C-alpha cells in the first residue's frame, strides 16, 4: 500500500522544493503570452556553458536536436555554401590533428548513429512500462483544459468561476461549491481540499522516495513544456496578462499530481505502489556528464565551417583599402535614423543609392526614449521599450479620431442559441461573399493587425511634463526638459552624430501588418517590446525639436541648428510603406525638401519590396519594382498567406560602427546595423551601452531562429497551418495539445542557422575592456553564443575574440566580387547571396 509513513524531514533534506521549482522554471520555455512576443535564447538555461558544450548537454538531457542534420551539412558543402578551404581550416583548428584528411573523410562520408536519445521522461515512463497505464492520456486533456480556461483572456464566453483567489484556491472553491466535483475519487478530493496538503505529501504518494521527486517533476513537466513554461512565465511576470491571473508553477504541479493520483486510484482502486518502488534497473539521472563523442566533434566542425564560410567573406569585405573620408565631409542632404533591425538594412541601402548625400543611422528602434504608452480609451499601459527596462514615464494619447471597426464573425452571439440561429441564416450568407472577396480580391479588414493602428497620427501625445498632472500608478506623465535632453543627447552620442545636422532628419520606427497571424507581435519592433515604433519616433522627434532641449544640448556641446527639423515616421516592414508624423506645419523650405525626400523614400520602398519578393516563390520578381510592390502589399491583407513577411529570417550579423564601414557592401538583409563612431567614444561608454542592449536583443533573435530552425518540433512551434488559438495566450495543435512555444516553420524555412557575428569598429583593446565590464554581456561572448570580431579603424586589421583574447584574423577569401545592378540580382535567385561589393 501507498501509505508508507516516511519522515517529512528526510524528504526535505534530499528534496528542496524551492530549489527544484526554481530549476524547473529556469529550464522551461520562457515565451510570453502572444500579445508580447519577445525573442530570446531558447536554451537560455544553458548560457553559462560554452556554446557547443551547452548544445551537447541540452541534446543529451532533453533530446533536442541542436544542429542541422549531417546530410544537410553535406548538401551545403556540395552546393558550395560551405567552402572547402574553410572546412579544412576548421578541421585543423578544432581537432588539432596531424591527419586532416582522415577527419575530412569522416565529415563527408562517415556513418554515424545520429539518433537522439535523452534522459528526460525515462523514469516517468514506468507508468507505461510497469503499470501498462497511459497516465498522460488520462490526465493531460483535463489538466490543459482547466489551466487553459483559468488563464483564458477572452475566448470563452463563460469564464472560469472566481479566478481571483488564485489557481489552487479557485479550484478548491469550485470543488467544494458544486454538485459534483472534478475529481472521481475520495482520496484525491480530500487531498485537494485539505489546505495542509503539501507538494511533498503528494509526491510521496505518487513517487515514493524523496530522491526521485526532482527527476519525476522534470519528467512530468517536460512532457508538456508548453503549458508549464507558460504558467511559469505568468507567475514571474504578472503583467504578461491584461486580465490578471494568480498562478504559480507550484500550484500547477500540485493540481497535476492530484489528477494523477485520481487517475491512478480510479484505474487501480488505490492499490498501486508509488513509482519509485517499481524501478527495476537503474534510471539514468538527467544531469549526468556528457562526454564529447566523435559525432559531436563532427557537428562542431560542420557548424563552424558553415558559419565561417559566410563570416569570412564579410570580414574580408568590410575593411576599406583606400580611405575616402572626403564624402563624409560633404554636408548631407538629409539624415534618417532607422532601427538596427536587419529588415532596414536594404531600405537604407536603396535610400543612399538614390541620394548619395543622404546619411542613414541605425539605433535600437525605441530611440532611447523609454516609457509606457496609453492610447486614448486604452484601459492599460503598453511598454514600448526593450523588455528588460522598467520605465518611469507614461505617454498618453488624446484627441484620437481612431475607431476600430467591428467584425461580426468574432462576436459571441454566433456561439449562442437563438441569436446564432438568426445570424447563421442571414449573416452566414454574407460570410460566403466575404470569403469570396477575401480570396480573389484581398483588402484591409478589421481582422488584420495594422502597424498604423498603434497610434493615431492626428492624436496628441502628452510628451511634455505637466506639474499639475498627477502621476499614474507611479508613472510620471511626460518628460521634464532635462530628462528629454538626456535622452536626445544619449542617442546622438551613441550613433556619433554631433555635428553637420541636415535641415531634415527623419526618425523612422518600424512595425508590421498582417492578418491571420497569431505571432504578429514578433513581427514588430523588438526594441519596443514587440510594438510598432511610431510613438517613440514621434516622441523623440518632439524632444529633439524642443527649443529648451536644444538649449541644454548646446550647453553640453551639441549644437543643433535652428533650421534643423526632426520628423517622426513609421516604416511598415510588411507593406513597405512609410507614414510620416511631422509635429507641426513645415516651413516652405522644409516642405520642398520633404516632398523631394518623400519621393526618394517612395522609390526606395519599391525597390526594397522587390528585393524582399525574391524570397517569396509565388510572387513574380521580374516585374517592375512598383508593380511587385503592389503584390507584396497584398500579402499583409491576404487571409491565406502564412508568410506576410519573413521577419528576421537569414539574420547573421550585427555590425556596430560607422555606416562608412558597410556602405559599400551588399549584405543581403542579413545584418543588424548599429551606428557607432569610435572617434567620439574613446572611453567605450557608448559602446558598452550599445553592446549591453544589442547582445541580448540581436543574440536572442538569432538564437531563437537558430533553435527553432534546427529542431522545429521540440524547440519551435512546428507548422502553423493547424494551429489553434488557446485562450489568446498561445497556440497548440488541435484541441487537446500542449502549447507550442518557439517560432513556426513558416517563419524560418529560409533561415540559415548560424550564430550571430558581432563586428565592432573600434580598437581591439577598448572592446576587450568594454565587454568585460558587464558580466551578463560578457557571458554571451565568452561562451560564444554570439561571436565577436573587431576591425581596428586605424590599421583596418581584423581581430576575432577567442578564449578571452583578441586574435588577429587572416581571411581565407581572397576577393569579394562586385555587383553593378542589384535589381537584376534580385531577379536571379531566391537563395542567399554571398557578400558583394557595390559599385
Amino acid at each position, binding site marked *: 500500500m501507498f501509505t508508507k509513513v516516511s519522515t517529512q524531514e528526510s524528504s526535505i533534506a534530499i528534496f528542496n522544493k524551492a530549489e527544484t521549482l526554481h530549476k524547473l522554471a529556469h529550464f522551461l520555455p520562457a515565451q510570453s503570452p502572444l500579445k508580447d512576443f519577445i525573442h530570446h535564447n531558447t536554451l537560455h538555461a544553458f548560457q553559462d556553458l560554452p556554446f557547443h558544450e551547452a548544445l551537447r548537454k541540452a541534446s543529451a538531457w532533453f533530446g533536442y536536436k541542436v544542429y542541422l542534420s549531417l546530410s544537410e551539412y553535406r548538401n551545403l558543402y556540395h552546393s558550395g555554401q560551405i567552402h572547402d578551404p574553410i572546412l579544412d581550416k576548421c578541421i585543423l583548428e578544432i581537432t588539432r590533428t596531424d591527419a586532416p584528411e582522415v577527419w575530412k573523410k569522416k565529415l563527408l562520408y562517415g556513418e554515424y548513429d545520429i539518433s*537522439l536519445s535523452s534522459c528526460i521522461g525515462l523514469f516517468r515512463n514506468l507508468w507505461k512500462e510497469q503499470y501498462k497505464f497511459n497516465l498522460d492520456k488520462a490526465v*493531460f486533456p483535463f489538466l490543459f483544459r*482547466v489551466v*487553459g*480556461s483559468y488563464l483564458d483572456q*477572452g*475566448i*470563452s*464566453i*463563460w469564464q472560469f*468561476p472566481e479566478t481571483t483567489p488564485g489557481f489552487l484556491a479557485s479550484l478548491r472553491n*469550485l470543488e467544494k*461549491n*458544486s*454538485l*459534483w*466535483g472534478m475529481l472521481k475519487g475520495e482520496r484525491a478530493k480530500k487531498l485537494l481540499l485539505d489546505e495542509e496538503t503539501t507538494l511533498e505529501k503528494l509526491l510521496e504518494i505518487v513517487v515514493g522516495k524523496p530522491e526521485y521527486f526532482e527527476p519525476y517533476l522534470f519528467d512530468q513537466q517536460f*512532457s*508538456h*513544456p*508548453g503549458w508549464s513554461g507558460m504558467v511559469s512565465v505568468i507567475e514571474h511576470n504578472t503583467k504578461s496578462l491584461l486580465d490578471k491571473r494568480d498562478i504559480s508553477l507550484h500550484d500547477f504541479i500540485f493540481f497535476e499530481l492530484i489528477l494523477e493520483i485520481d487517475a491512478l486510484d480510479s484505474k487501480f482502486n488505490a492499490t498501486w505502489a508509488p513509482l519509485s518502488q517499481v524501478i527495476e534497473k537503474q534510471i539514468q539521472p538527467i544531469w549526468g556528464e556528457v562526454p564529447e563523442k566523435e559525432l559531436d566533434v563532427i557537428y562542431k566542425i560542420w557548424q563552424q565551417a558553415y558559419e565561417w564560410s559566410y563570416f569570412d567573406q564579410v570580414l574580408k569585405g568590410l575593411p576599406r583599402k583606400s580611405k575616402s573620408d572626403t564624402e563624409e565631409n560633404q554636408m548631407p542632404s538629409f539624415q534618417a535614423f532607422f532601427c538596427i533591425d536587419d529588415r532596414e538594412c536594404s531600405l537604407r541601402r536603396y535610400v543612399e543609392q538614390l541620394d548619395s548625400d543622404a546619411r542613414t543611422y541605425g539605433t535600437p528602434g525605441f530611440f532611447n526614449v523609454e516609457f509606457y504608452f496609453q492610447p486614448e480609451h486604452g*484601459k492599460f499601459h*503598453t511598454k514600448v521599450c526593450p523588455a528588460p527596462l522598467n520605465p518611469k514615464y507614461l505617454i498618453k494619447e488624446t484627441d484620437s479620431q481612431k475607431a476600430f471597426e467591428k467584425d461580426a*464573425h*468574432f462576436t459571441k452571439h454566433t*456561439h449562442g*442559441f437563438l441569436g*446564432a440561429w438568426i445570424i*447563421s441564416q*442571414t449573416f452566414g450568407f454574407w*460570410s460566403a461573399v466575404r470569403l469570396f472577396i477575401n480570396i480573389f480580391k484581398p483588402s484591409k479588414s*478589421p*481582422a*488584420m493587425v495594422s502597424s498604423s*493602428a498603434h497610434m493615431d497620427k492626428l492624436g496628441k501625445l502628452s510628451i511634455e511634463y505637466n506639474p499639475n498632472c498627477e502621476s499614474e500608478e507611479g508613472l510620471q506623465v511626460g518628460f521634464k526638459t532635462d530628462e528629454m535632453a538626456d535622452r536626445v543627447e544619449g542617442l546622438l552620442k551613441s550613433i556619433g552624430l554631433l555635428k553637420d545636422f541636415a535641415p531634415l532628419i527623419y526618425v523612422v520606427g518600424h512595425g508590421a501588418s498582417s*492578418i*491571420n497571424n497569431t505571432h504578429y507581435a514578433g513581427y514588430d519592433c523588438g526594441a519596443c517590446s514587440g510594438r510598432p515604433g511610431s510613438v517613440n519616433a514621434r516622441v523623440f522627434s518632439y524632444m529633439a525639436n524642443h527649443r529648451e532641449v536644444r538649449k541644454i544640448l548646446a550647453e553640453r556641446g551639441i549644437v543643433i541648428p535652428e533650421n534643423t527639423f526632426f520628423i517622426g515616421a513609421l516604416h511598415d516592414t510588411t507593406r513597405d510603406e512609410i507614414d510620416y508624423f511631422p509635429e507641426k506645419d513645415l516651413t516652405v523650405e522644409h516642405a520642398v525638401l520633404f516632398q523631394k525626400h518623400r519621393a526618394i523614400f517612395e522609390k526606395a520602398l519599391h525597390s526594397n519590396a522587390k528585393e524582399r519578393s525574391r524570397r517569396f516563390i*509565388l510572387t513574380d520578381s521580374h516585374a517592375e519594382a512598383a508593380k511587385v510592390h503592389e503584390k507584396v502589399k497584398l500579402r499583409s491583407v491576404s*487571409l*491565406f*498567406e*502564412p508568410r506576410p513577411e519573413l521577419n528576421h529570417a537569414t539574420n547573421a550579423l550585427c555590425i556596430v560602427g560607422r555606416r562608412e564601414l558597410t556602405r559599400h557592401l551588399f549584405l543581403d538583409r542579413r545584418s543588424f546595423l548599429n551606428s557607432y563612431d569610435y572617434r567620439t567614444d574613446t572611453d567605450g561608454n557608448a559602446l558598452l551601452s550599445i553592446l549591453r542592449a544589442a547582445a541580448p536583443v540581436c543574440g536572442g533573435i538569432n538564437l531563437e531562429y537558430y533553435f527553432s530552425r534546427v529542431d522545429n*518540433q*521540440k524547440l519551435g512551434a512546428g*507548422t*502553423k*497551418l493547424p*494551429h*489553434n*488559438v*488557446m*485562450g*489568446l495566450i498561445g497556440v*497548440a*495543435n*488541435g*484541441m*487537446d*495539445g500542449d502549447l507550442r512555444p518557439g517560432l513556426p516553420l513558416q517563419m524560418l*524555412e529560409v533561415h540559415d542557422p548560424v550564430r550571430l557575428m558581432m563586428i565592432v569598429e573600434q580598437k581591439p583593446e577598448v572592446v576587450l575592456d568594454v565587454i568585460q565590464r558587464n558580466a551578463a554581456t560578457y557571458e554571451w561572448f565568452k561562451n560564444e553564443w554570439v561571436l565577436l570580431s573587431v576591425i581596428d579603424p586605424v590599421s583596418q586589421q581584423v581581430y576575432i575574440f577567442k578564449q578571452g583574447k583578441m586574435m588577429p584574423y587572416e581571411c581565407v577569401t581572397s576577393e569579394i566580387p562586385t555587383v553593378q545592378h542589384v535589381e537584376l540580382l534580385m531577379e536571379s535567385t531566391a537563395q542567399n547571396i554571398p557578400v558583394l561589393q557595390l559599385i
Partner: protein
Amino acid sequence: MDIVWIIQLFILIPLFGFLVSLFIKPGSEKWLSRTAYITTGLNLLLFIGFFVLWVISGFETLNLKEFVVYRSESYEFLIDFYFDKVTAVYLFVGSFLTFLIIAYSRYYLHREVGYKRFFNTVLFFYLGYNITIFSGNFETLFIGWEVLGLSSFLLIAFYRNRYLPVSNAVKVFSIYRIGDVGILLAMWASHHLWHENITFLRLNNYDLVHEHISSHSEIGMFISFMLLIAAAAKSAQLPFSSWLPRAMEGPTPSSAIFYGSLSVHFGVFLLLRTFPFWEHQPVVRILIGLLGFTTAVVAFFIARVQSTVKSQIAYSSIVQIGIIFMEVAAGFENLALIHFAGNAFLRTYQLLVSPSVVSYLIRDQFYNYKENSQKGGAYFPSRLSNSIYLLSLKEWNLDRLMNKIAFTPLKKAGHKLDFLNMKNVFLFFIPVYLVGIYFHFHQEYIPSYILNYIPEVFSFIAMIMVLKAFSERKLPRLAWLLVIMAHFWITLAVSFNEHFDFSHSLIYLSGIIPAGILGYVSLKMLKNHEPDHFSLNGYYGHVYEYPRLSFVFLLAVLGLMGFPVSFSFLGEDLIFSHIHENQFFLAFFNAISFIVGGIALIRIYARLFLGPHVKNNHENPYRSA
C-alpha cells in the same frame, strides 16, 4: 430538353481530377493545385449551368438509373443518381466552398510537406461528397459515405507523424463506422421491406410507402432508427458530439470546410433524403426533434466554456445542427436547407479567420476591458452554475461515455480472447472451418433444429475473431489473419441460408483474398525490415521511412474492409441480402464484424505506419504536442 445525363458529369469530373492528381509529382505544387482548381472550378461552373437548365425545366426531380452492377433473380445492385432541391442546395454549398478552399489552400499550403496528399485527399473527399448527394438509392449513398469516412480519416491524420492527430483520426473513423452500422442495417431491413432495391425517388410515392410501412410498422421503425444513428454520428449529435472538435487536427482550411461545414452536415442530408420514408411515423419525428433539441442545449453550454477558438466554433456549429435536426423533424425542409447553407458558410469563414482572433480580441480587451465581463452562469445560483460549468468543461463526459458504451466493452470482450495466438487459431479454426464446409455440402447430416442456428453460430465466431483483431496488442499479422478468417466465416455462415447462390460467396471473397495476401506480404516485409518495431502496442510511424509500403498496405486495408474499390463491397451488400428478415442476430453479428473489422484494420495501419516515428534520427515532436 433532357438534362439528366449531365448528372454523371458531377461524378466524373471529380473522379477524373482525383485520378490525375494521383499521378502528379509530389514536388509540383503548380500542377497539383491547378488540377484541383480546374476540377472544382469546372464543377462550380457546371453547377451554375445545370442549375439554370433545371430552373427552366421547372425544378423537376430527376432520376438517373446509371447501371446495374450485378443482377440475379432475387437481387440487383444498381448505381442510381437523383437530383432534387436538397441535392441542389448541397451541391451549391459544396462546390462553392470546395472551390474557394482550393483557391485558398494553393497559397496556404505552399511548401508544406504533404502538399500533394492534401490535394489528393480533398479531391477524393469531393468525389465522395458528390456521390453521396447525388445518390439515388442506399447502395450508391453508401459508396459515397465510405469515401467520406476514409478521406476524413486521412485529413485528420494529415500530420501523421504526431500522436494526437493520428489517435483522433482513429477515434473519428471509429465513430463514423458506428454510424455505418446504422446504414448497413437500414439497408438490410429495407431489402426485406421493399423486396427490391428501392430508390429514393420511389420513396416519394406516398401510397407505396404508406402501404409497406403500415403492414410492417416495426421494420419501418427499425429502419428509421438506424438512419437516425447514422445521421447523429455523422452530424456529431448526442452522444457522439465529442468527435467534432477533435477532428480539427489538419490544416485550418481543411478543418474549416470538412468539420466546419460539409462533412458535419451529412447527417442532416441523410434525414432530408429519407424524409418521405419516416414522415408519417410520429414517434420517429419526435425522437429526431428531441435528439436535436437535447444536443443543442448540451452543446450550447459546452460551447460557452471553450477556451480554444476551434473547439468553440465546433460546438457552436453543433448547436445549430441540433436546431436543424429539429427543423427537419418539424418538416420545415426549406428552412433547414437555408439554415444548413448559412451555418456552413459562417463556420467555414469563422474557422478560416480563427488565427486573427488573437489580435482582434486582445485589441478589444485592451480598449473595452471590464472586470468579470465573461460571467456566463450568472442566471443560476452559484452552486448550480459551478456544477454546470464543470460539467461543460468535461464536455458532459461525452468522450468518456463513448468509450464506456462502445469501445471499452469491445476491447474487454476482445481481451477475454487473449489466449488466442497464431498457433491455436490455425490449429483449431481451420479444421473446424473445413468441417463447416463439409457440412455445407452435406446438410442432410445435420438435424434441422441445429441447422437453424448454424448461421448465427458461425457469424458469432466471425465476430469473435474480429473482436480479437480489434483488441490485439502485439501481433499485427495475427490481427490481420483474424480479419481475413472472419470474412470466410461470414461467408460460410450465410451460405447455410437456403437460397444461397455460391457464386455470391466468390464475388465477396474475390476482393478479400487478394487484399488479404497483399496486406500479409506487406506486413511480412515490414517485419523483416523492422523486427524490433513491429507490434500493435503503440504507434511506430513507419510511414516516415516506408511511404510506399505504407500506401500499398493502406490499399490492402481498404480491400479487406470491403471499401468500394473491389467487388467485395458489392458482395457485402449481397451477403446482407441473404440474411432473412427474422435473423436479426445474424444481421447484428455481421454488422458488428463489418464495423469492428474496419476499425481493427485502420488501427493496424495507424499503429504501424502512423504516429510519432519510433526512431529518433530526426527531430520528433513531443507526444503531447
